[in-house]
Each structure stands twice: as structure tokens, then as C-alpha cells.
């Protein structure tokens, strides 16, 4: 009955750090204690305070910029005719793209029975929520009068008007709202059994009450688990088409228009691939420091990084195909405006940005073909950072180069971001990181109950994706 009597996991094959999704030697109890200790008992590391302070300072920068923006107007940004969409839409698309990995990992990889998703899904989902929060900020603030944001929603009003559903911008409102809600539900549902664990293990009364309140009286009843698993599976099935639809709708914001470079049928798949690409790059960017500073290398193993690198490689190649097709269609369509758009990207005033994006998103990516690179944590971290940058540059190129020189040379112009564009962007990174630091401190970053089910004694013998044969459990 004591801790010593916990059954130890018998290890069938020698531990291979390159291919195992969980280090050996864990029991139900020890894995529970390890993950819950990050929240409950371990002293908050000094690095956490440092990181949180930095992130919070950036958040203050966002609050300052937003306050100045509300007091003055969007004129403090660099957007003007002909480039009416600048950093606001670039950052919106960038953040929404990042927000795609979480639900993809949770939903699609669940349906595909990729068991390695278990140790990264929780914080990837949290990352998704926070990225969507950052994304939502931009269109709202870009409206000029954000306090009237509810005009976007369909409700009977005294003006006798309704939102115009033939416009993709209204589709966006529905897509983003639904995505934020479903992502939140998915994340919260996954947290309930772990909140119950924290409730049962918290020593201080206040935390017991708080976690207990959120756990809603979860007690792990077999009947509850049956319905819970059904609900989780159904949510995954619903979230899968939703993930694909959200960035499709975002791409419609561009593709439905007739601007050269935007009016292309390849946009939806190209945007979805780009979203998954940037999302996995961000998961990698966050997972690598997280596993190092919190000593989670046993749980987030090299196998996870390797798999994520492979997904990045696949989606990055799809994105590269998108770039190629944009250029090909500009030539093949024979449309002079399309043709000029590509030449302007290659040689115009924003050409360095276009070349930089090709280097980051397509060039550097090729290193991931090498297994040696995929085994190097530093290389993966560097590549993931470059992909984050590259995907941001991609959105810059899409938004700005198409708008700044379209049909009439007399209406050409240049877009130059102001200091407030930059403070807003840095500030949104601050918001993202602040929320992430709070999440790491207050909630389990790895799904505890799913990790328990990963232990070899419960793993089904035929479980694909397990790296060790499931041994018959031994009793000590």
C-alpha cells in the first residue's frame, strides 16, 4: 500500500532514447508525481520569474500601444492607401497559423492513433488558445472603433441591418469564434481528470478548492470515462474539419478578392499547409526549452522532436510547392498583372524579404532530411525559429507586395511600418508568453492521465506507434 509497493514497469527492450516515446522505469504513481510536482510542490524556478517578467513587460508594451491606439486612431500605424492591410493582418494570419498545431495534434493525431501526441498535446493546445487570443486582437483593434465589435455579430438591432454573409470577412468572424470556442472546450475537457489529480494532491486548502471547483467533482467513474472518451473522440472528429476550415476561411479573405497574387484557388490548401508548418515550428520552439528547463526529457523525448521535424518537413515542402505554383500560374495564366506581381516580388522594393522567406521556409528546411540534424536539439531549435520568422515574412510578402502595386501605377505606394506597428507586434508576443508562463506554472503541461495509459503495462500489444513491445505486467 505504500509507494514502495507500486508495481515497477518491466522493460522488455533496452531503452533507446532515439525511438522511445517515454523513458522506462515510470509507474502510475511516479509519472503522476513528476508532472503534478511542476505545479504543486517544486519551487518555482528563478528562470520562470525572469521569463515571466520579460513577457509581462512586453505585455505592458501592448497595453500601452493599445491605449494610445484607442485614444488616437489607427493612424499611428503605417497602414494607408494603397496598403490598407499591414501588420494587423500579417500578424493576425501569423498567429492564427501558429494556433493550428494544437488542435491538429489533439484531433488529427488522435484519430490517426499517433500515441506520441500524448506528451505534447496539452501545451500545444494551450499554445493554440493563446495564439488565437493574440490573433483575435488584431482585427478588433484594426476596426478603429473596437468598442463596436459586436456589430460583427448577427443580432436584431435598431439600425435594421445584418452582417453581410457574402463577404469572407464575416465568415472569418464565425470561423475564428468557433475555432476559439472548440479549442477551449477541447483543452478544458482534456484537463478535467488532471484537475481532479491536482485537487487530490494539493496540500494547501485554497488550491484544493480551486482545482476542485474546476474539476467539477470528477471521480474517475468507469461510466464517466466511457462517456468522456466518446465525447473526446467526437470532439476530435469535429475539430479535424474545423482546423482545416479555419485557415481556409482566412485564405478566402485574400482569395475571394481580385487583387493579383491573392485571387488564386491554391490559397486554401497552401494556407492550411503553412499554418500547420508554422504551428509545429512554434510547438518545437516552445517544447525544446520547456523539456530542458523542467527536465522533461523523459516524457518529451527525441522521438517527439524527430516526428515533429518530419511533419515540418512535409508541410514545409507543401508550402514550397505553393510558392512554385504561384510563380507558375503567374506565367501560365498570361495575365500581365499576375506576371508583374511575381516579378515585383523577385526584383521589386520588397525583394529582400521575399528571398529571405524562401531561404527560411524552403532552403533551411531541407536540412531536416538529415537524421543527424533531426537528432540535434540545437539545430532543431534554430530551424524552428527560422521557420517562425520565415512564415511571418511570407505573410508580409502576401499582404504587402500585392497591395502596394496593383493595377494602376498611378496608385502605387510603399508600406512602412511605424514604431507602433512594432510595439504592437512585440506586445502580442508578450501577451502570448505571459499566458504561457502562467499556464506552465498553474496547470499540468503534460496530460497526466493519458501518460498513465501510455505505460507499457496498459498499452495494447498491437499498439502501433509504441516503440517497445507491451510486456506482460510483472507484480512485485
Amino acid at each position, binding site marked *: *500500500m505504500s509507494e514502495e*509497493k*507500486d*508495481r515497477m514497469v518491466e522493460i522488455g527492450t533496452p531503452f533507446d532514447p532515439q525511438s522511445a516515446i517515454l523513458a522506462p522505469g515510470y*509507474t*502510475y*504513481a511516479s509519472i*503522476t508525481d513528476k508532472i503534478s510536482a511542476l505545479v504543486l510542490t517544486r519551487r518555482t524556478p528563478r528562470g520562470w520569474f525572469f521569463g515571466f517578467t520579460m513577457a509581462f513587460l512586453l505585455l505592458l508594451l501592448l497595453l500601452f500601444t493599445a491605449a494610445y491606439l484607442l485614444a488616437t486612431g489607427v493612424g499611428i500605424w503605417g497602414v494607408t492607401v494603397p496598403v490598407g492591410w499591414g501588420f494587423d493582418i500579417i500578424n493576425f494570419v501569423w498567429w492564427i497559423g501558429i494556433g493550428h498545431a494544437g488542435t491538429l495534434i489533439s484531433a488529427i493525431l488522435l484519430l490517426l492513433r499517433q500515441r506520441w501526441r500524448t506528451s505534447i498535446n496539452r501545451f500545444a493546445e494551450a499554445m493554440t488558445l493563446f495564439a488565437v487570443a493574440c490573433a483575435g486582437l488584431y482585427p478588433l483593434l484594426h476596426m478603429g472603433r473596437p468598442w463596436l465589435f459586436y456589430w460583427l455579430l*448577427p443580432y436584431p438591432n435598431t439600425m*435594421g441591418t*445584418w452582417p*453581410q*454573409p*457574402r463577404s*469572407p470577412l*464575416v*465568415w472569418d468572424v*464565425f*470561423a475564428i*469564434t*468557433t475555432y476559439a*470556442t*472548440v479549442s477551449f*472546450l477541447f483543452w478544458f*475537457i482534456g484537463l478535467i*481528470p488532471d484537475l*481532479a*489529480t491536482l485537487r*487530490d*494532491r494539493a496540500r494547501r486548502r485554497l488550491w484544493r478548492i480551486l482545482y476542485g471547483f474546476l474539476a*467539477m*467533482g*470528477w*471521480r*474517475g*467513474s*468507469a*461510466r*464517466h*470515462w*466511457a*462517456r*468522456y*472518451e*466518446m*465525447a473526446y473522440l*467526437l*470532439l476530435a472528429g*469535429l*475539430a479535424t474539419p*474545423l482546423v482545416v*476550415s479555419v485557415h481556409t*476561411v482566412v485564405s*478566402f479573405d485574400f482569395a475571394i478578392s481580385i487583387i493579383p497574387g491573392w485571387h488564386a484557388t491554391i490559397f486554401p490548401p497552401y494556407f492550411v499547409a503553412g499554418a500547420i508548418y508554422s504551428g509545429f515550428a512554434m510547438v518545437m520552439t516552445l517544447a525544446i526549452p520547456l523539456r530542458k528547463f523542467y527536465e522533461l526529457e523523459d516524457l518529451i523525448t527525441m522521438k517527439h522532436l524527430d516526428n515533429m521535424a518530419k511533419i515540418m518537413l512535409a508541410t514545409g515542402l507543401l508550402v514550397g510547392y505553393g510558392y512554385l505554383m504561384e510563380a507558375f500560374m503567374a506565367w501560365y495564366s498570361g495575365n500581365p498583372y499576375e506576371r508583374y506581381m511575381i516579378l515585383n516580388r523577385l526584383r521589386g522594393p520588397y525583394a529582400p524579404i521575399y528571398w529571405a522567406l524562401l531561404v527560411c521556409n524552403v532552403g533551411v528546411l531541407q536540412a531536416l532530411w538529415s537524421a543527424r540534424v533531426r537528432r540535434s536539439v540545437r539545430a532543431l531549435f534554430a530551424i524552428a525559429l527560422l521557420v517562425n520568422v520565415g512564415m511571418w515574412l511570407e505573410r508580409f510578402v502576401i499582404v504587402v507586395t500585392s497591395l502596394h502595386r496593383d493595377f494602376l501605377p498611378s496608385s502605387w505606394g510603399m508600406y512602412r511600418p511605424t514604431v507602433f506597428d512594432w510595439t504592437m507586434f512585440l506586445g502580442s508576443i508578450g501577451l502570448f508568453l505571459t499566458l504561457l508562463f502562467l499556464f506552465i506554472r498553474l496547470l499540468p503541461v503534460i496530460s497526466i*492521465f493519458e501518460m*498513465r495509459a501510455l505505460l507499457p*503495462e*496498459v498499452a495494447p500489444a498491437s499498439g502501433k506507434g509504441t516503440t517497445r513491445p507491451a510486456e506482460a*505486467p510483472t*507484480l512485485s
Partner: protein
Amino acid sequence: MAERTDIYGLLAEFNAPEKVLAAAQRAYAEGYRRMDAYTPFPVEGLAEALGFHRTRLPILVLLGGLFGGALGYALLYYAEVIDYPLIVGGKPFHSWPAFIPIVFETTIFFAALSAVLGMLALNGLPMPYHPVFNVPRFALASRDRFFLLIEARDPKFDREATRRFLEALGADGVWEVEP
């Protein structure tokens, strides 16, 4: 300790998922029906062993999705055809292809909401009080221990006989649950 007659049931503790599963099957075969098992993660076959076979959740989710889709379409039809007809880009008022993205999103929205709320409602959550939490060892149900509860309401329940039965199943301990 004074003998109490009003208990909620007997709670048996096990240290492995196979054991609680076998115990649940034996108890069911013995004729016990009002029982439940508590585990730190879903154990395959355990709910079935307790006599739980189907959940109505999928049909709820289907209905939620259909409701959401119908609501979305009705909203757009009313707004764009009846209440506020506006010619945009020469398209007809009832330009259904443009309605599809929003109808899709409202379908998913309501289906997902009914999955979550339906699961919580069918499970009777949130539940602020439940007798099993009166057993101090029950805190381990969310860590590494597996529990089988036979309720006193069960017609076959007998305080002594049931206790002996549970102990014979290989339980590490059997506790009386205060109501």
C-alpha cells in the same frame, strides 16, 4: 466504534487495472448491479463489465450539429432574403453557396458544445458532493489505485457478506463509505 447502519456502500481497493476489471466481472456475475468502478485512466472493458453498454452521447451530438446547421441557415436566410435583402455583386438574395462557410461553422459549434455539455450532463457533473470522497484512500483514485464500489442500495448488498466477497476478490482493502 458504534455500529452504523446507514452506509453508502463498500469500496474495495485494487492495485492494477486487470484486477479491478476481473473484480467487476465477478461482482456482476454474482448478481450485483448497483456498483461503480473508479480508475485513474480509462480501463478498456470496465464500463461494460459493470453493465454499461451504450451512451446516448453520439445522438445528442448529431442533433446538436443538425440544430446548429439549421439555425445558421435559417439565420442567414432570414437576414439576407427576408429582413435585409441587399444586392451584392449581382448575386441573388438567396445565394446559398456563400452561406456554406457560416453554416458549416455553426454546425461544428453546436455539435461540439453538445458533445461537451452532453457529456457533463449525462455524467451528472458538476457534482459538488459525492460520498466516495469520504474515504481518505480515495484520493489515490486519481493517481495509481483502482476502486470498486458496491452500493448499499443494491438488493444483494449485505454488509458482511459483501465485504467478505470483495476481500475474496483480492482487494488490498475494503472500506465502508459514509453516505
